[in-house]
């Protein structure tokens, strides 16, 4: 559905994107994960047709974005990073205004607005001015504006910045519904929890380059660091090394007050290890889980944290 080939974009001497290749299939929930300044927004701006790449090609549904950008606009919905709404208009009036730009007829637009207000849980506030809304509520209307023309592709540029937990849940639920309905979603964020929760596939971008690409499981496999369980105890652990090795299959390192077990699957191994340690009389005082996630993967690949 979306094919990005060897995309380059510079702002003066600064190279924002240095040859990105991404293929996104129809109906996929695709995450672009990277720290601030990685090139996520530039990629979104190119996909949304308001920015022209210096080099490379983008095809959406086989249509070349360079030559037929206007055609593409009709099946792309974009949620910008900013809350792009008119504060002095009501939620309903904002939606009417943005909807009419897509030449949706009045009765259909009215129906669509009510559906979206319902989806975002804001039908009770539709006649209130945007300036009276909380940040999270504004974000929800911001998303609704992008969905008015029922786009096949939804581009979302960090749509949950500054959002309260309640609104975040509303947004996630709404996005999952859209995903189930077959909408292709491209979601940029620097919150790895969001990507892990929502996305089927991910590209991790740093300094304008893709440093890893694939599903979450595929990416986790890239990590050289194993997941581990660290058990703290007040028992004399070193004296019980032999008993532990006889009863538990996992490899481990032991020190005076803790044992570190290496796991293939931390979730299934955790209960087994605890039960066996209890059985051999080891008193557990604390448990630490060291999981491999996108954060640790990013750290491993770049030497920096995602939120740096």
């Amino acid at each position: 559905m979306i094919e990005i080939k060897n995309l380059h974009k510079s702002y003066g001497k600064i190279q924002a994107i240095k040859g990105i290749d991404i293929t996104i299939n129809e109906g996929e929930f695709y995450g672009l994960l990277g720290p601030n300044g990685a090139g996520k927004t530039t990629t979104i701006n190119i996909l949304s047709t308001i920015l022209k790449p210096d080099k490379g090609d983008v095809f959406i549904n086989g249509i070349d974005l360079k030559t037929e950008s206007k055609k593409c606009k009709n099946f792309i919905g974009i949620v910008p990073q900013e809350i792009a709404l008119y504060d002095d208009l009501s939620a309903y009036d904002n939606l009417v205004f943005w909807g009419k730009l897509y030449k949706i007829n009045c009765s259909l637009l009215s129906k669509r607005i009510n559906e979206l207000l319902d989806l975002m849980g804001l039908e009770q506030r539709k006649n209130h001015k945007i300036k009276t809304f909380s940040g999270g509520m504004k974000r929800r209307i911001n998303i609704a504006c992008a969905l008015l023309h029922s786009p096949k592709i939804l581009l979302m540029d960090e749509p949950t910045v500054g959002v309260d937990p309640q609104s975040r849940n509303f947004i996630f639920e709404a996005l999952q519904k859209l995903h189930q309905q077959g909408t292709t979603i491209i979601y940029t964020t620097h919150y790895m929890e969001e990507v892990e929760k929502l996305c089927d596939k991910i590209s991790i971008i740093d300094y304008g380059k893709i440093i890893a690409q694939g599903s979450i499981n595929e990416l986790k496999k890239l990590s050289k660091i194993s997941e581990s369980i660290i058990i703290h105890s007040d028992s004399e652990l070193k004296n019980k090394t032999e008993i532990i090795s006889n009863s538990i299959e996992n490899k481990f390192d032991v020190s005076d007050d803790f044992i570190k077990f290496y796991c293939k699957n931390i979730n299934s191994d955790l209960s087994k290890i605890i039960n066996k340690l209890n059985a051999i009389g080891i008193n557990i005082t604390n448990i630490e889980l060291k999981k491999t996630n996108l954060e640790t993967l990013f750290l491993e690949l770049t030497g920096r944290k995602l939120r740096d």
Partner: protein
Amino acid sequence: MIRLTLKDLKLFITDFKAVLLTFMLPIILVTLFTIGFGGISGGRKSNPIKLLVSDQDSTEMTQNIITKLDSLKELDIEQLSLTKAKKAIREGKRMAVLTFYKGCTDSIKNGNNVPMEIFYDESREAEIGLLQQALISNLIGMIGQQKIKKNIFNLIDEKNANLSPALLSSIHQQVEEQFEKLQSKNENPVTRGMSLKMTKLFADEEPNWALIQAVAGVSVMMLLFSVAGMGATLLEEKEKGTLKRLLYSPINPLEILFGKMLYTFIIALIQLFILFIFAWLVFNLEIFSNLPALIMLLIATAFACSSFGIFLASICKSRKQVESLSTIIILVMSAIGGSMMPYFLMPPFMKKMAMFSVNHWSIQGMYDIFYRHLPTIHIVNKSLILLSIGIIISLIALNRFKKHILKVA
């Protein structure tokens, strides 16, 4: 484009303060300027110029001259000692003193240079100009009459040296009587030749120039301030991210600019119409004397001003920049364009500079309609100039918009 305009109009209407500032402030300023220029008391009767006179000669002749000057409707004479008169001028209470020095009468009788002088406040140059007009023609007439009379007497005495003093005195008496007769018939041969007859062209139907100046000057100046604010909404869209969202939509980017221009034009036109209707209702400005010409001129003015508002937005990077830059540009344009002082009081170099301002063409168009009552063709010319100014700055704005504003990413 229409949707964008309607959205902006809706936003404008919901902003009570903006509505109040756009429509009420010009009305208040027009009222104040009209009062300030004396437009309410009626421009049909101009106030006489107050002139101090210090008569150090104190003869019957100088007092006669002073009485005659005081009888002129253009002048209001007050006699003071020279010291007190100079003090009054320094304190700004009066603008000039006409001084008759000792020996004035003798000099007139002997046909010599008359020792008199005017001391004036140079900061009141415009009023001094009016004073000169009123004073010189009459004063020279009166003094010149005395001098000529003296020359005639000398000539008679020279040519008739053989006549007896009694007969010569009788001839002098007869000449004197002839001068008196002519003077009483207002046929003074001296003043008829020397004085400048001042007749008002508009006579009793003279329109109220002060009102026209106040309404025309303030309306254009305030309009420029309003449109600068409206043009700045383009930058507000950019700052808030709504411009980016507009660009995401399938509309042509130029529709965004034209939508803003249409919105600014509509508000500008409404503002002008409200102001002129107010001037008609409250100050009896004859807006129906040539209504088609007035409508044409207002449309051209609104177009030129709204283009200026968009132009300002297109050359600035932020709303704050628009605020500062617009204040400077509008004040300069209003000063040279005749919004702050009537064009006829401007020095020549300012009159030349005025040609480059929107204010000038619009204000002069309004003078053509309300004051000079010129045919519509004169207003067509000025309207075309305004439209041309509007088109040129719109094209610059368009170019800047493409290069500057559209770079949102």
